[in-house]
């Protein structure tokens, strides 16, 4: 049963991305994993091919592609098997750049968006701090107004694209005494190279090795007031608004992982033999795979249905998207566990993608809002 989400144009676009991946990504994955980064030339190439900022209006370098084109890109980058690349591109292109589009001033849009679309400007979104993750209103970073400038003092961590971004969207407090505290949160833009800004340790992660994830330090960083996004004190609201898309993209990623893990494992159990027969013909294995296939089919219809509604402009889907984000993220982890098991010893070897996937998917239930936070949100919407 096909959900029928994509048009013929989307399928053509999918093929373009897939061809690009085969030619320009697959041969280099090991090298990028070892380097913990992806080359800028790759980003420029993606810009050239129209993968970046595709959804932007033409005057900013895009061609107003719909949300579903973003879904295609997200899926195909997961299928590239370079988890780090998929993460970095999605976080910049589908999660961070939309902040500029939705909350940025005209001047900010003109300055940055065309460069985002060309691959010249990678964007990082900096919320998390060493002592503040889920509880965003408790951040300690500040941006204090001083004449025509803000002075930013901040410590941020686990920042995707942290090591190689050109522009950092930073969540700060512009009013530390605001009550409730979230009303003091604002978003400011800091460009790479601004004095006082430094990239700290590049963090070693369990998976997604090619992703450039870093700690950042902002010490007395002076930025013009024009670098404020939108209005002071509205940062929390902007994040809440944009998190819907971020989480839906998270669910799309999780679903793509589920499908590929299942597909590869199905193939493996049909070819691997033991005790004189393919291991897929053992009933316990067969039923275990059926369990997974069933869950994935349910997840697919649910996530695609949300994508359809989101693409049509629905924005009152906070609870439903939270459901998808947590449930499919958790599912990807269960499936990874079972698929490694079915691969036996090979599943424990990094040369097998399933082993990488096992490590890559672990962040899906943590990043962009933990499963626990999702459940709090859903609970509230149910009146619990």
């Amino acid at each position, binding site marked *: 049963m096909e959900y029928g989400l994509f048009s013929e144009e989307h399928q053509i676009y999918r093929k373009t991305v897939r061809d690009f991946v085969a030619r320009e990504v697959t041969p280099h994955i090991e090298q990028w994993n070892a380097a913990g980064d992806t080359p800028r030339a790759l980003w420029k190439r993606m810009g050239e091919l129209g993968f970046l900022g595709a959804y932007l209006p033409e005057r900013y370098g895009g061609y107003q592609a719909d949300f579903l084109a973003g879904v295609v890109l997200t899926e195909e980058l997961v299928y590239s098997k370079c988890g780090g690349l998929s993460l970095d591109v999605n976080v910049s292109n589908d999660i961070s750049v939309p902040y500029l589009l939705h909350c940025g001033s005209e001047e900010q849009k003109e300055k940055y968006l065309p460069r985002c679309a060309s691959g010249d400007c990678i964007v990082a979104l900096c919320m998390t701090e060493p002592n503040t993750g889920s509880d965003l209103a408790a951040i300690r970073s500040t941006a204090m107004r001083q004449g025509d400038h803000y002075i930013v003092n901040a410590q941020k961590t686990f920042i995707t694209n942290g090591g190689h971004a050109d522009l950092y969207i930073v969540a700060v407090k512009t009013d530390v005494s605001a009550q409730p505290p979230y009303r003091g949160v604002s978003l400011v833009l800091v460009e790479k190279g601004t004095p006082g800004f430094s990239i700290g340790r590049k963090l070693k992660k369990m998976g997604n090795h090619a992703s450039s994830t870093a700690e950042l330090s902002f010490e007395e960083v002076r930025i013009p007031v024009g670098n404020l996004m939108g209005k002071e004190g509205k940062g929390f609201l902007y994040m809440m608004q944009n998190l819907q898309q971020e989480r839906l993209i998270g669910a799309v990623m999780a679903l793509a992982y589920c499908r590929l893990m299942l597909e590869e494992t199905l193939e493996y159990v049909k070819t691997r033999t033991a005790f004189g027969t393919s291991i897929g013909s053992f009933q316990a294995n067969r039923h275990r795979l*059926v369990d997974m296939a*069933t869950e994935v089919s349910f997840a697919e219809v649910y996530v695609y249905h949300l994508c359809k509604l989101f693409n049509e402009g629905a924005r009152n889907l906070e609870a439903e998207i939270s459901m998808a984000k947590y449930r499919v993220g958790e599912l990807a982890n269960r499936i990874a566990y079972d698929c490694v098991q079915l691969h036996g010893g090979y599943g424990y070897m990094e040369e097998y993608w399933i082993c990488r996937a096992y490590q890559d998917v672990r962040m899906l239930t943590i990043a962009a809002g933990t499963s626990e936070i999702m459940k709090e949100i859903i609970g509230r919407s149910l009146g619990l």
Partner: protein
Amino acid sequence: MRREIFREEHEIFRDAFRKFVEKNVVPRQEEWTKAGIVSRDIWEKAGREGYLCPWVAEPYGGFGADFLYSTVIMEELTRVGESGFALSLHSDVVVPYLEAFGTEEQKQRWLPKCVSGDMITAVAMTEPNAGSDLQALRATAVRDGDSYVINGQKTFITNGMINDLVIVACLTDPKAQPRYSGMSLLCVEAGTPGYNKVRKLEKIGMHSQDTAELFFEDCRVPKENLLGMKEGQGFIQMMVKLQQERLVVAIGAVASMWAVLGWTKKYCEERVAFGKPIIKFQNTRFKLVEMYTMAEVMQTFLDRLIVEHMKGSDVVTEVSMAKWMATEELKKTVDQCLQFFGGYGYMVEYPIAKAYTDVRVHTIFAGTTEIMKEIIGRRLGM
């Protein structure tokens, strides 16, 4: 999430049927449970008001309604926890055999009565030694002149006592190889000599539903009672019709999840422990959220599946998936919800206790979870 499959006329129908249920079903549930069977008059009343087989074409007494009307009926009966009045089994499982495979003469003979409530139906496949493995059934129907003579035993038959017409799976050619090619469906009317409704079975749940053992001893029916008037079609006919039967079970299971969650949420809001309503405990809230999420995901899948089923697409894999997973999840949901009710959950006067015993059979009937997984596994190439 708002459901998108229903149109305004379905909602109007839902309102009307809900009122019918509130007025005619709910007040009598206790009585039927005690009696171990629903009374015949509810069938007649439902028939008179157009709630039996509304999908049947007008020439046979129905109004050609689509499958969404059947969906509404199932959901509304489930909403009030009615598990004895096997209306959906009659309307959406058994009568479709008559409509799809019956000859014109057979349809004219039986369908109008099925719609009016004068004829309650059942289908008899399972035997004491043949459940999932249908090919192992042993009942025979031997041709003798213008008749078939049926011998055999059937068990776990829903509407077993109350039925006026039962469709019986038999071997018309016991020597056929493969065995299934010798299988046929025979229609037997109540009162036919040799058709004995032997024993109403005691079950752990669904107490108001009459489930019985049937015994056929030299039961002679006219050859015109062979469904479709062609021998050897029985197995294929069952395989085709089992799809809707399983879909019906899945629809009921998800509707049941919503009902159970509704009761539980309400209880958790009212029940106070350690100085606050138990819904204020994070564990309670998270567990409810997980169950609501599951119900939401299931409903979205099912609604999509219903649309595909109505289009006539091949949805064997998806129906099998929906059947096993919805029923397994329902079982887990009811168990978890009962836990929140504490001691009250163990008392039969609470609907959650009744649901606990009612739902146990869902992963068994209409194809066990294990059989569903075998079907899906085959279709995935394993």
